């Protein structure tokens, strides 16, 4: 459906996009992940014909965006980073204009089509209002409505949930997921849980280069083959440590420190293909040291992201638990909280 070949974009001496190639199949939701300034928006702008590539090709459903721009653009609904809204128009006037501008041809009449889309993104009750007076969240939805006009086969959404409140974010994500049944979607974000929640496939881009292209699960598997666990044990730290180290298949044991009264946390890692959990349980129970928690410390998308974009190699030594040693929250809550922290990079 979408084919990008050796795309390169140069701004003077600065290389914004560096030899990026990928394809997106019909009906796929592709997550486009990268830190700010990685080249996500530039790639999307090239894909939609707003910018021209210095080198390389972008092909939408068989139409090259440079050679056949009109045909290619008809297939695309685009929501840029900043929704292109004429703020001096009402929502109705604006959508009416965009409908004409995009030369939409759908089975239904213009009026029904626009009504359906307003229903879908839940802006029906603000249709008579000036866009200028709408809140950020509603402006964003009008932007999404505009992209959906004419049911384009390809939807390109540049950070669609920016500026929305958590409830709206969930609504928009659900909407995007439901759209993928009839559309091919490319979604950019620097918010990792968003990509995790919505996308089938993830492309990670950093400093203009493609650093990963795979499903989310495969990505975490590739980067961590080892069987690693974070474990909390109620028992004297030194003795527990030496006992854990005495297990034959154990390759690494690391103490992380005290977590609760008398409870210490450790990281354990076993040989590949060896499930260490049973052995650990037997030995600990024989000494009457209860296991307070045991969780697999597979890499989260955050870790993958940092590893890929910063070229960090020490990621295996830095499980999620160690980032905030004082944090006693559950891992799920931790991931939510890191949502904001992750943006900084």
């Amino acid at each position, binding site marked *: 459906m979408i084919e990008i070949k050796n795309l390169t974009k140069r701004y003077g001496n600065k290389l914004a996009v560096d030899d990026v190639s990928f394809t997106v199949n019909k009906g796929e939701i592709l997550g486009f992940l990268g830190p700010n300034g990685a080249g996500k928006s530039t790639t999307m702008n090239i894909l939609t014909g707003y*910018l021209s590539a210095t080198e390389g090709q972008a092909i939408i459903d068989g139409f090259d965006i440079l050679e056949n721009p009109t045909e290619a653009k008809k297939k695309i609904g685009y929501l840029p980073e900043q929704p292109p809204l*004429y703020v001096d128009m009402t929502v109705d006037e604006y959508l009416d204009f965009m409908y004409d501008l995009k030369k939409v041809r759908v089975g239904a009449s213009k009026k029904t089509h626009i009504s359906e889309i307003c229903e879908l993104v839940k802006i029906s009750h603000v249709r008579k209002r000036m866009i200028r007076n709408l809140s950020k969240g509603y402006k964003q939805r009008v932007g999404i409505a505009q992209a959906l006009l004419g049911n384009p086969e390809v939807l390109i959404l540049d950070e669609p949930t920016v500026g929305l409140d958590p409830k709206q974010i969930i609504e928009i994500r659900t909407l995007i997921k439901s759209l993928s049944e009839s559309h091919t979607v490319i979604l950019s974000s620097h918010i990792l849980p968003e990509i995790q929640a919505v996308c089938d496939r993830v492309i990670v881009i950093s400093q203009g280069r493609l650093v990963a292209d795979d499903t989310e699960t495969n990505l975490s598997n590739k980067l961590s083959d080892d069987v690693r666990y974070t474990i909390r044990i109620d028992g004297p730290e030194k003795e527990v440590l030496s006992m854990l180290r005495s297990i034959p298949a154990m390759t690494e044991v690391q103490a992380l420190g005290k977590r609760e009264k008398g409870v210490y946390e450790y990281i354990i890692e076993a040989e590949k293909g060896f499930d260490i959990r049973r052995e650990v349980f037997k030995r600990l129970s024989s000494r009457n040291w209860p296991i307070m928690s045991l969780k697999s410390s597979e890499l989260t998308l955050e870790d993958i992201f940092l590893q890929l974009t910063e070229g960090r190699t020490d990621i295996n030594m830095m499980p999620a638990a160690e980032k905030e040693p004082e944090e006693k929250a559950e891992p799920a809550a931790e991931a939510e909280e890191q949502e904001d922290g992750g943006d900084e990079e």
Partner: protein
Amino acid sequence: MSAILRREFATYFRAPLGYIYLAIFYFFGGQFFSAVLYSMTNSIGTVFSSMFTVLMFTIPLLTMRLMSEDKRLKTDQALLTAPVSLNGIVWGKFLAAFALFGIGIAITILYFLILSSMATPQWNIFLGNLLGIILLGGSLISIGMFISSLTESQMIAAIGGFAAMFFVFMIDSIASIMPVAWLGAIFEQLSFLTRYNDFTSGILDFSNILFFLSVVVVFNFLTVRILERKRWS
């Protein structure tokens, strides 16, 4: 193109700009016309020749936000990613400004009808004058729009527009102070005023028509190039 034309035209009346433009235009037009009535002449040409200056000051009002506003609001992303050619965008906007300009000069038809109720109408002179002002307006609009495409700020576009209009106005004086004869001759050929005065004095010269049409085509083409350049930079 028609969607852009309709939107731009409607925008003039969404803000007071369109009304202000028409009010200024009608005020001065009325004043010039009353001078014709007072002097008991049936020559409408003086209205048109005086209009040259009015156009200089009003056209930048029409063109200042045409391209700059889209850049500032990033709505150019909607236009440039829609299945419309760059020519469609530029000509759509040009025609919207031109349509409002047309509503302004249509008042001269009323003047002519009033005049012809009192004296023998000079149809061909009136039509020649009307053609002249249409061509002059069109070329000034395309120059103003080109300047608007160079900036994101309406104010700069307006000031730049006035400067360009002033330059157009000054071409004759520049030509007269040129130390080299052939350079002066070139500037004389570029004189909007001389060519426009041909129309108002009742001369219909095909080269003048061609001159103004070329200005429109050249500056609209340059505006397209500016949009195109943005893509590549």
